[in-house]
């Protein structure tokens, strides 16, 4: 058994974390650690499973991160507690149950920086707010630049970030090496690393715990979380929706808030409302559990891969979306293959790691790669969708902004630029590529 540094660059050191390896007392004298041993225990009960009431002031459709966070801020900021969150499956069981948990705010445009930075600030206090551990770890994100155009775009984005109060800096390859020693910064690879943008406050969080933390909090406040409750239709009265038809009966509502991500179009079709959303599979994967080798988050737009290491030790890697429309929660293998080729070139240390599992989530993409938040042609139906590949990081920020929009019947200033009618006015918020996102 070899002895390794915590952040070794030798491929031979990326050995699986086995009981035998732990017993050998490696990691330079630090005590052996059992994967997951440092994760907190769960309370016996997190939320109740109530029968739906006949009516609610606000019915939120979608019990993922966004729906739960919206309910939380309706309670906390606006004192609105007669709220139901309807979930067709189990709570936080869609994209919230499987995602790459990347949290950052280094977006190019002012509109995006405002809402994502608002969200990042909320993440920084979320554990205290929820009274529940979410393992938010601000380990920084590197967005690699591989071409001269990448470098120019990246420097431009850093300057824009700084003007918007977002922590960002441009760093040279030798600094990339210092921050993340396992990145291959040699010049003889297909996409050499010419530098990177760095946002130190970016991080990851334990996605399940985030969903559970919100759920526990709103359950305590009297919000009904209703699982296995699929919306099958809406009761309309002119420009209003007066009720929601579900597999668990009809529920009357004062206001409806849609937060259904990849399934948004299924709901809006029932309302006769067209939204510019295309649902695509987005694949990600994790490796077996490894010793800590990857201290930060690395994204590379050009080669379509982003990588971090989860608290338990899995390498978590995301790809770009599969090209075709899909609702099947799985994607094509050649997408994963291309992603792995890119990952192994950038991180030679990963070459011997084994794949543990892959999955596909259904993401709701828009023509300008920005979300849609705000009003609909119905007086009392509010829409939140179109977060595409980046919804997790927005969870608390969107919840805050969407709750404010619902409570005041007026788009929050951070939501206003993301209105549905921007596709008619032409005032798009084009974050394709500009966001440093692998779309």
């Amino acid at each position, binding site marked *: 058994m070899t002895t390794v540094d915590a952040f070794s660059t030798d491929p031979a050191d990326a050995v699986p974390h086995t009981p035998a390896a732990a017993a050998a007392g490696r990691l330079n004298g630090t005590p052996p650690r059992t994967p997951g041993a440092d994760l907190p225990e769960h309370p016996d009960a997190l939320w109740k499973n109530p029968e739906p009431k006949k009516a609610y002031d606000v019915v939120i459709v979608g019990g993922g991160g966004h729906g739960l966070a919206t309910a939380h801020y309706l309670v906390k900021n606006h004192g609105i507690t007669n709220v139901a969150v309807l979930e067709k499956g189990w709570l936080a069981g869609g994209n919230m149950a499987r995602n790459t948990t990347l949290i950052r705010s280094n977006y190019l445009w002012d509109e995006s920086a405002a809402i994502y930075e608002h969200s990042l600030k909320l993440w920084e206090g979320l554990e205290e707010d929820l009274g529940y551990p979410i393992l938010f770890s601000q380990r920084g994100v590197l967005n690699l630049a591989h071409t001269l155009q990448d470098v120019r775009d990246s420097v431009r984005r850093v300057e824009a970030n700084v003007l918007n109060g977002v922590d960002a800096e441009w760093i040279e390859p030798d600094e990339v090496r210092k921050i993340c020693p396992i990145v291959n910064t040699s010049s003889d690879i297909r996409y050499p690393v010419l530098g990177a943008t760095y946002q130190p406050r970016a991080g990851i969080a334990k996605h399940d715990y985030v969903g559970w933390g919100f759920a526990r909090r709103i359950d305590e406040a009297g919000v009904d979380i209703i699982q296995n409750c699929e919306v099958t239709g809406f009761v309309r009265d002119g420009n209003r929706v007066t009720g929601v038809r579900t597999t668990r009966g009809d529920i009357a509502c004062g206001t409806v808030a849609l937060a259904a991500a990849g*399934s948004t*179009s*299924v709901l809006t079709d029932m309302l006769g409302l*067209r*939204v*510019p*959303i*295309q*649902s695509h599979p987005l694949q990600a994967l994790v490796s077996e559990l490894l010793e800590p080798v990857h201290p930060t988050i690395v994204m590379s737009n050009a080669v379509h891969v982003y990588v971090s290491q989860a608290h338990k030790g899995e390498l978590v890697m995301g790809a770009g979306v599969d*090209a*075709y*429309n*899909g*609702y*099947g929660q799985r994607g*094509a*293998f*050649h997408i994963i293959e291309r992603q792995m080729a890119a990952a192994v070139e950038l991180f030679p240390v990963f070459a011997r790691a084994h794949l543990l599992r892959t999955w596909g989530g259904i993401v709701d993409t828009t*023509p300008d790669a920005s979300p849609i938040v705000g009003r609909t042609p119905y007086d009392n139906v509010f829409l939140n969708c179109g977060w595409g590949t980046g919804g997790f990081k927005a969870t608390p920020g969107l919840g805050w902004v969407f709750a404010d929009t619902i409570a005041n019947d007026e788009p929050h200033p951070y939501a206003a630029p993301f209105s549905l009618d921007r*596709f*008619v*006015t*032409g005032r798009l918020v084009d974050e394709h590529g500009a966001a440093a996102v692998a779309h």
Partner: protein
Amino acid sequence: MQMIKCPWCGPREEVEYHYGGQAHVAYPAEPAALSDEEWAHYLFFRDNTRGLFAERWVHTAGCRRWFNAVRDTVTYRFHATYRPDEPRPVTA
């Protein structure tokens, strides 16, 4: 890997193709007559069907010709492929 049947070349691997989104969206007969809203709908709004969906594909690495397909967006199974000048076939 999924095999897709090009109407001209026959079955080939999925990586030879590129996706083109919803099929049968005609260019407006009188573009200048459209309102901003109608133009927005032509430009940005497409069906996002859960189930059988008629869509465009191009055989990039083969004959480079466009064609249409009816594919199930839940199972991803192709039910039919057909030439652009043919009507959408009736599929189960």
